[in-house]
């Protein structure tokens, strides 16, 4: 199970107040989170799915963008750790009255939450909050920047199937430009030594992506060839404001993941998708529902990984002994 290539002794705590992005984490810290998530998973198999690790801690899920999967996943994770949680959706809050993000955060802060899980449409929104809040900030997706817990759950899922991440060929295909999942995954996978290929229409290729240690190609076939992992990204039609490709039909023809195309990959390839899927656009249903798909495992693993993140940011074992 160990993918550790670094000589440094394993660490036992996350010395961070916030999780703003994978870019702030070292390879050892990533592995600590993944290892902790292994331990957390077992809790979900118990008849009583609850431990007292975060008893007395208040966690606010502050979501400025619609989200079912991520918010639910965080909420379940928080509850399994016995945290007091509350959900604030932007439309139901003072935001509609014109309150700024900073004021919303300061008002929450005045009620002394321990952690704020933030999703926001603006890149860097979590950084802004981390500078003004004592509460730990967990990034649940900020604009086109990062979605660190998604990358962590992806890595957790890959590790389950492939043991080690180092040396794997991982192809990430789709709307790269607008994807925070891409940015977090590129950070994480390159830190753990994977051979990362990205592919998609040139119009959706982020500037300077190759400087992040990945290979880019507009040929999906080239990216998929010999791949251990194929990760499809959602075409974020709601963020598309330009002329990025002619039609969904043409997109599917050129970039869509079909069973035929998947034959180029390794025989034990796994197919991933952060959801929600556009069936018949970036991924054919045959592939999404097929034997290589681990898409629903990703969702299950999300809970364990988020439990690990919450637990470690709250102080982990150190916090518990202090109680």
């Amino acid at each position: 199970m160990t993918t550790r290539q670094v000589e440094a002794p394993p660490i036992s705590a996350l010395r961070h107040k916030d999780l703003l992005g994978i870019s702030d984490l070292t390879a050892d810290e990533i592995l600590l989170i993944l290892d902790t998530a292994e331990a957390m998973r077992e809790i979900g198999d118990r008849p009583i799915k609850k431990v007292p690790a975060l008893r007395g801690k208040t966690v606010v899920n502050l979501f400025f963008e619609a989200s079912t999967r991520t918010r639910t996943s965080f909420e379940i994770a928080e509850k399994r750790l016995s945290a007091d949680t509350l959900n604030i959706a932007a439309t139901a809050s003072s935001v509609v009255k014109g309150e700024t993000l900073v004021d919303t955060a300061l008002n929450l802060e005045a009620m002394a939450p321990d952690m704020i899980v933030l999703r926001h449409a603006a890149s860097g929104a979590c950084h802004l909050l981390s500078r003004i809040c004592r509460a730990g900030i967990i990034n649940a997706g900020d604009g086109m920047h990062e979605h660190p817990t998604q990358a962590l759950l992806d890595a957790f899922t890959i590790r389950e199937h492939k043991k080690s991440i180092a040396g794997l060929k991982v192809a990430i295909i789709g709307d790269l430009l607008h994807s925070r999942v891409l940015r977090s995954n590129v950070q994480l996978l390159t830190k753990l030594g994977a051979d990362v290929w990205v592919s998609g229409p040139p119009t959706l290729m982020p500037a300077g992506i190759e400087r992040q240690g990945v290979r880019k190609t507009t040929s999906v076939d080239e990216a998929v060839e010999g791949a251990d992992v194929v990760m499809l990204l959602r075409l974020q039609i709601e963020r598309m404001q330009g002329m990025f490709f002619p039609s969904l039909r043409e997109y599917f023809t050129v970039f869509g993941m079909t069973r035929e195309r998947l034959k180029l990959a390794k025989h034990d390839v796994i197919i991933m998708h952060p959801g929600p899927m556009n069936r018949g656009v970036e991924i054919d249903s045959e592939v999404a529902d097929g034997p290589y798909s681990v898409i629903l495992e990703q969702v299950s693993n999300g809970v364990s990984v988020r439990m690990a993140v919450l637990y470690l940011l709250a102080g982990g074992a150190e916090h518990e002994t202090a109680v």
Partner: protein
Amino acid sequence: MKRLFKGGRVVDPANGRDGLFDVLIDGDRIVRVAKDIPPDGAHVVDVPAGFVVVPGLFDMHVHLREPGQEHKETVATGTASAVVGGFTAVACMPNTTPINDNAGVTEYILQKAAQAGLARVYPIGAVSKGSNGDQLADIAELRAAGCVGVSDDGRPVKTALLMRRALEYTAMFNMPVLEHCEDPSLKGEGVAHEGYHASTLGLRGIPGVAESIMAQRDIALAELTGGAVHICHMSAMESLRAVREGKGHGARVTCEVAPHHFTMTDEALASPVSYDTNVKMNPPLRAAADRDEMLKGIADGSVDCIATDHAPHHYDEKKVEFDVAPFGIVGLETCVPICFDRLVHPGLITLSRLIELLSVNPSRILNVASGALSDGAVADITILVPDLQVTVDPARFKSKSRNTPFGGWQLKGGVAATIVGGRTVYMNDAAAGAGRFK
């Protein structure tokens, strides 16, 4: 009252002077600049060694925000900021509320400037009514009221046809069109330079060519019409290439570069503070290659002016998500130290060339009678201290706003005093000996 500034180094490129000269002023006029002028009853001001007397500096691109956005800046606070920065004159952009597209607004601004009695204010009028690109503003009326140029700054002149007409029309007054070069479709919803850093941070990009494409259009139209176009706050190397080429063809094109564009790069988006809204400006901080090209243009003469694009914003407006924050930073009070520290002291340009960039050329481009210490000229004078150590402290700015990325920067070079129409309107207590310029 006569005052004789004695023994200082005088740098006055318009008159070919750089050496020890005395400057005699009487009331609001310069009487004479010569060696060893006898006092003859004048009050003698000894200029200490190391201080330099230059023609008043002129920032040809500022936003004074009045009328309409007085919470950001007023003509009074903006001109107070200007004189602290060593500027005896500023040209203020028309994107106020309402837009300066008629004589009433121009007169209002000039009246506020007169009341403040600090720096001279030269309003820039709008090219089009409401700056909305549909119909020319009453440019002759604006000119008669005191405007020295026209611009739809904040946005580009909307169509090639309107730009053509504006250049043709303003040519009869020998007045330039000041252009904010930006192709709106390429800029899109961009908030930062398109490149590695914006990409990594998930910020929408604005490529350099969004600027240069518009510059190329306007230079071509200047050639066609014989009108004068001035490229504002140039940031992209492709734009500079277009300007050089246009000048080579004899087009009437000039350009300015802002201090932040020749000092900082898009790396500032990520560090020391990521998503700092005080590094959000339009055009954005660009790549190192662009920054270096701006420096080259300043050194080789293809850049005509340094202008700050002083753009005050209230801190509430900047304390928001990066995407939501307004573009722009203040610049009047940091310009001179940055220019000394980054241009003159490293030997990139001479002090004389700096004065061309900050005084002679802006005056020439806007056809304003300043920028020279000539006999009989109005006594607009700045006294500089090239070796003054300056630490930028936004809390001490005279501007109403503090939106600067330069806070805490330690720079060498500053201002000792600013004299407008023979009157000392600013003295820097930190520059030893500045008190004598009373």
